[in-house]
């Protein structure tokens, strides 16, 4: 295990790569691609190696920490001088998200190999810069630093959509940026307010202060702060009704952009909820959980229903993300260990499966230059392999057991059911609907006779595409079968999030009578106590 500023290297290696790309001649496309690929691959391998080694199984806290004082605040030299710190660290949750990011970057670069023909150099630079931002978001332990990366990531994504996107790319790009900024700038106000209350931007310090009771936010303040953070994350996720940027952004983005957007960027929102909303504002989280769950459930069903009737294949996949991410949010705000782990798993699974779907949609686009399903039909005949891959990925997306989508969805629903059976029941409708829209669209695209003459001669997957897709398939299968590898590592971190939520009640809590935990009406009293015991056992057992 090498020592040194590993996380910094992980964050800035792609930036170095981008710099190196800058030095290449801009018409030397082949070497630009190769270099970008090499950098991203190196990044992926390093992230696998360092993070898996550096964050041992069962460790709850932050590992591989790096800490430097960075920007001073407050009167110079006085006692009240504080600092914005350069504070990095990884735990079980961020670990896999980083790996997902680095992996999908490799995939994005590979899938853009042929399909990007204009401004090739800039394209790959943007992809690498995007990686910097996203990895930075997942590894930051300082609120300021987090926000910094959060915003940095906007710019490359904006360019990716705006320059290399499709017809309405500019509208989509601007919408994407404005939507995201609308949320994040309020989050900035929230971050500053939190700083004002705590005197630091350092996440572990604040967490610690909240844990020990050294810091207690007044109820109103906590509520507003929670909302400031939550709305920013909800827009990113995107949670209904903040989702309308997503279909546009996805449809207009180039394939690589869609893959990164769906695969990683959306996860930043849910990651933020886990990392910030819950530990920092537990009471507000608890108070808002029912409302958020309702939104999540609406999102699940609504996203699925709207996906069902989309004539545009890419838009369909985009709306399916709304639905899937609804599950994640639900899992987070059920405050149950199982659902929390399910949510984390689902984030990863969705990254792979929806990433895969976008890849495939992109491959169709490369061949036919359209997303309209009416233009397809019967494609399984000219390209059986692509059809097979598509089916496989679609199945993983609709949550077929043994594939990755199932594990996350199942755990989320299972965990949610343990505390709020009705939430889970409503959300499970999404499971039905996902089958509806995916299979129906699959049928419309691949089954039947070929109706459009052009489609008869479309080439099947190329060797390069086959490598990408096969990798995705293998990972999908592995995650579906060997999920313990991941859940085992996220367990302690997820537990610690929930532990932080369960800190001792404070003065004002006493005034509000604690509502008894809702029991499902149908459970006889005998089994109810049994269940409670189970729950408490569960908490004890996994600590």
């Amino acid at each position, binding site marked *: 295990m090498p020592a040194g500023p590993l996380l910094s290297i992980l964050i800035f290696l792609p930036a170095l790569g981008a710099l190196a790309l800058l030095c290449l001649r801009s018409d030397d496309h082949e070497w630009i691609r190769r270099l970008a690929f090499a950098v991203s691959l190196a990044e992926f391998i390093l992230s696998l190696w360092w993070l898996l080694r550096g964050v041992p199984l069962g460790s709850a806290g932050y590992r591989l920490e790096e800490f430097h004082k960075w920007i001073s605040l407050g009167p110079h030299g006085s006692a009240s001088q504080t600092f914005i710190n350069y504070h990095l660290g990884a735990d079980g949750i961020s670990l896999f998200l980083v790996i997902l990011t680095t992996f999908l970057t490799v995939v994005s670069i590979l899938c853009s190999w042929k399909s990007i023909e204009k401004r090739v150099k800039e394209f790959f630079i943007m992809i690498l810069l995007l990686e910097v931002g996203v990895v930075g978001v997942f590894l930051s332990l300082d609120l300021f630093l987090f926000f910094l990366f959060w915003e940095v990531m906007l710019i490359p994504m904006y360019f990716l959509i705006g320059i290399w996107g499709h017809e309405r790319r500019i509208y989509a790009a601007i919408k994407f940026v*404005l939507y995201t900024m609308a949320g994040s700038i309020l989050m900035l106000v929230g971050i500053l307010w939190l700083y004002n209350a705590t005197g630091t931007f350092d996440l572990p310090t604040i967490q610690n202060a909240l844990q020990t009771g050294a810091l207690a936010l007044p109820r109103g303040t906590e509520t507003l702060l929670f909302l400031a953070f939550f709305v920013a994350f909800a827009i990113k996720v995107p949670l209904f*009704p903040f*989702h*309308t940027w997503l279909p546009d952004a996805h449809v207009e983005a180039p394939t690589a952009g869609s893959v990164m957007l769906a695969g990683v960027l959306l996860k930043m929102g849910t990651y933020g909820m886990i990392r910030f909303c819950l530990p920092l504002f537990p009471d507000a989280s608890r108070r808002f959980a029912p409302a958020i769950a309702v939104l999540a459930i609406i999102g699940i069903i*609504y996203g699925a*229903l*709207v996906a*069902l*009737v*989309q004539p545009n294949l890419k838009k369909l996949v985009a709306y399916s993300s709304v639905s899937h991410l609804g599950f994640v949010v639900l899992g987070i705000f059920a405050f*149950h*260990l*199982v659902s929390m*782990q399910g949510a984390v*798993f689902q984030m990863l699974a969705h990254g792979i499966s929806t990433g895969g779907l976008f890849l495939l949609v992109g491959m169709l686009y490369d061949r036919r230059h359209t997303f309209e399903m009416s233009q397809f039909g019967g494609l*399984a005949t000219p390209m*059986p392999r692509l059809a097979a891959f598509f089916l496989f990925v679609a*199945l993983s997306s609709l949550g*077929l*057991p*043994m594939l990755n989508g*199932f*594990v996350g969805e*199942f*755990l989320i*629903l*299972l*965990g949610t*059911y*343990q505390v709020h*059976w009705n939430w*889970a029941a409503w959300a*499970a*409708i999404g*499971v*039905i609907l996902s*089958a*509806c829209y995916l*299979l*129906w669209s699959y*049928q419309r695209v691949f*089954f*039947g*006779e070929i109706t459009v003459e052009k489609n008869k001669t479309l080439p099947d997957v190329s060797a390069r595409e086959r490598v990408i897709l096969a990798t995705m398939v293998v990972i999908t299968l592995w995650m579906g*079968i060997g999920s*313990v590898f991941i*859940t*085992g590592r996220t*367990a302690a971190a997820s537990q610690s999030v929930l532990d932080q939520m369960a800190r001792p009640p404070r003065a004002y809590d006493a005034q509000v009578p604690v509502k008894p935990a809702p029991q499902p009406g*149908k*459970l*006889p009293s*005998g089994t109810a106590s*049994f*269940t409670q015991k*189970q729950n408490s*056992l*569960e908490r004890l*057992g*996994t600590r």
Partner: protein
Amino acid sequence: MPILDHLWIIPLLPLLGSAVNGLLGGKWPNKIVNSVALGATGLSFLFAVEAVREFVHLPPEQIPWVQKYFTWIAAGAFRADFALQIDQLTVVMLMVVTGVGFLIHIYSTGYMAHEGGYYRFFSYLNLFMFFMLILVMAANYVLLFVGWEGVGLCSYLLIGFYFLKKSAADAGKKAFIVNRIGDFGFMLGMFLLFRTFGTLDFVTVFSKAGPLQADAMGQFGTLTVACLLLFMGATGKSAQLPLYVWLPDAMEGPTPVSALIHAATMVTAGVYVVARSHVLFTHAPTAMLVVAVVGCATAIFAATIGLVQTDIKKVLAYSTVSQLGYMFLACGVGAFSAGIFHLMTHAFFKALLFLAAGSVIHAMGGEQDMRHMGGLSKKIKWTYATMLTATLAIAGFPPLAGFFSKDSILFSAFQSENGGPNTGRILYGIGLLTALLTSFYMFRLVFLTFFGKQRYDEHHIHVHESPWSMLGPLVILAVLSIVGGWFAAPTFWGGPDYFTNFLGPVFGGGAESAATEAAAHSLELTLALVAVVTALIGFGIAFWLYIRRPGKPEALAKSMRGIYTTLLNKYYVDEFYAATVVKPLMWVSTNVLWKFVDVAGIDGTVNGIASSATSLGDTVRHTQSGNTRSYAVWVVIGALVVIAVIFFWPAAAPVSGMGR
């Protein structure tokens, strides 16, 4: 005991076969594909036989024999292992699945020989075997669910095998989605079980559930709810009311598929699950009653539709639905072993029926409409003979398999007193009526197909007997359809019911007192006689209508136009679903959710904010009129504002309370 220690090998072989054929088979000739697929299933069958052989020598305390391989999902207190288990129930299922499955594989090599996508077909079929084996061997609900969903997938793939046909693709999709609706319940059932028992392992769940007090009739306690939810899953998979609609459509798939998946194995998974969860169900009398009623209702409902169908496979499909209803009826009245017994015999004769029908279709060059057949009995003798055997079996003529299994179900139903003293009689009555109808429509099928005038154009269709690769399985299944029920035969002369006894360790019971047994014995004989008479009546009507008076059915149809068309259109259930669920859902999704809420509502709001900002911007911009006098006025306004604020607003106290 080598195989019992390596149970995984049984499901894994078909998976390997599937993978090999699926990935590499595309370029191979049919022979190699055959040998891979048959080798995999055949070996799997042999291993299964060996496993069963070893199993019967196991001491009882080691049953169920559970083998854990690795932890599949673990989160918090939840843990789902990849674990296989084998007990008596599994043994029955295992033999049915691998045995019938293997036969159908053989049959398929003949049937599919001239179809495109040969390797694909066998790859799917092997994959199906894998999932089905997982389903029956799983040691916990989650792994069972893997098989459950997996077979659904294979069903989807195989129904839609002829994907160029829209109807086939539609049917596959419909099957999957309807199944998903059932799975919705199944999953919630699992969640509730986990919540109640803290685990989903069969052994633990059942051992914990055993001592619990059973719910009273009409009480919706945890177990009742859980059972009902599980049963919801079963209605989807096993095509019961109201989720049966996919199964008739599933006949779009190749006929071997219909035989294997949609008759013999997959569709019985629901029965299997109910039987597997019998410990829970026996604690939930309400759920039991629901199961019995739904099963019974489905049986009669499907049978009536079967009366008038003209597509040979559709008749069989409705017959399957009806027979599955029987099985649920058995489970619902607590006769789990009878249900499983019928499951097994049904697997034999219904597979046979389908395969024989396939052979007919094969002979007719793809024609499925019975109105265009007739008089085939002399041309395809083997097919005719086996088909007749199966028909006799399903109609319940002794001593064929169907007689015994159906008889024990009706007997159990008659005796049931769950939900009131007369419930059992009513269920029995309906069951008997169903038997009558079954006998009728099956013989109708036989008569229409094999007897009467030849109603097809001989110049176009060259009727020919199928190859031996197809006939072989037919013969074997015919034999099984005859002897498959003999396990239970001794009961008729006062001997033990070997089948029930074998399953005894799983379902319990079986040891009834001698006195009741004696009384029951005479009753059983009576009921059996009634059943046989019923079957004969059914046969008689069919004979009269289709052999003696061939014009009569049409006249009858005309005279009872309303009923006839209703039946022909399957009670308009599909149309009903389309009108009440599918169309409104699509309409709402398109026009309300997407166009109104999403585009006009949310996006409209967002864009509205943007455009109002722009128009506000335009207003602001137009204050820049370029006229210095206006500007001067603005300065004056500003001056007034500043002065007013400073004069008339309270002076700011340092750190005002704002924002706090």
